[in-house]
């Protein structure tokens, strides 16, 4: 809701929105959700959540992980994704480090799911550094057409 107010064109806020976009281009910062609960960038793997009529899809952008060591748990409507990224830095004294921007170490994120999901039909896959968790929505919530006699 906050985002849509700022996107109204030609208004006072429209000017600020253009300025914000230009600053984003200059500094190259990822599109942050500019809500009051925004997570600090780079501290946790970023998450996108989408919805289709039959499932809920959660994507976590976490590159460089061992797929067998990622923990995905679903408990009472909360999906929890946890794992650990090992440091790939060579440990000898002869190496100079110029830049270290990539996060290393343990991470965990929790997403609370809506009530209409079916916890018995969950699939998770890891490809190209993106963990995709697909949770089926339960049958009774699919919109049903009622024919008029």
């Amino acid at each position, binding site marked *: *809701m906050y985002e*849509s107010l700022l*996107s109204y*064109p030609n208004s006072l806020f429209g000017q600020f929105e253009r300025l914000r*976009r230009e600053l*984003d*281009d200059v500094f*190259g*910062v*990822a*599109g*942050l*959700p500019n809500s009051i609960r925004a*997570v600090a960038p*780079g501290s946790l793997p*970023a*998450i*996108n*959540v*989408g*919805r*289709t*009529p039959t*499932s*809920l*899809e959660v*994507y976590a*952008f*976490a*590159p*460089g*992980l061992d*797929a067998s060591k990622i923990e995905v748990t679903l408990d009472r409507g909360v999906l929890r994704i946890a794992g650990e990224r090992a440091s*790939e*830095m*060579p440990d*000898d004294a*002869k*190496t*100079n*480090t*110029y*830049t*270290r*921007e*990539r*996060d290393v170490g343990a991470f965990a994120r929790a997403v609370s799911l809506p009530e209409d999901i079916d916890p018995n039909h969950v699939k998770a896959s*890891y*490809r*190209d*550094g*993106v963990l*995709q968790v697909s949770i089926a929505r339960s049958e009774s919530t699919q919109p049903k057409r009622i024919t008029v006699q």
Partner: protein
Amino acid sequence: MSENKALTQAAAEQDAQRWVLPAVDVFEDETGITLLADMPGVPKDRLELKVEGDALLIEGSVQPFTPEGLEAVYAEVRIPRYRRSFSLSRELDTARIEANLKDGVLKLRIPKQAHAQPRRIAVSSA
């Protein structure tokens, strides 16, 4: 509050020209430079590495694998492209760059020119 489809479409088109800087780690040892870049969602066929003169350009676009009819509910990653460039110093041998992409992590190994590697010079006593 209702969704304004025209604005969403305009924003999506603008996103196609924007990109995000991937996080990188750069280390140097005696034989060359190792660069690790986080580019989750980029498969090998959507990664481009270019060397022009002394500039190295890394560019990758995220492969969308969203199912039919996906409606975004919450998105922290909105820009589907990574791009970053580096200027390389002369002592690096750009013809022998090795690149490896696994699980969204790009690993580049740029060796130093043979003549730039530290060599011990044996001193003979004559």
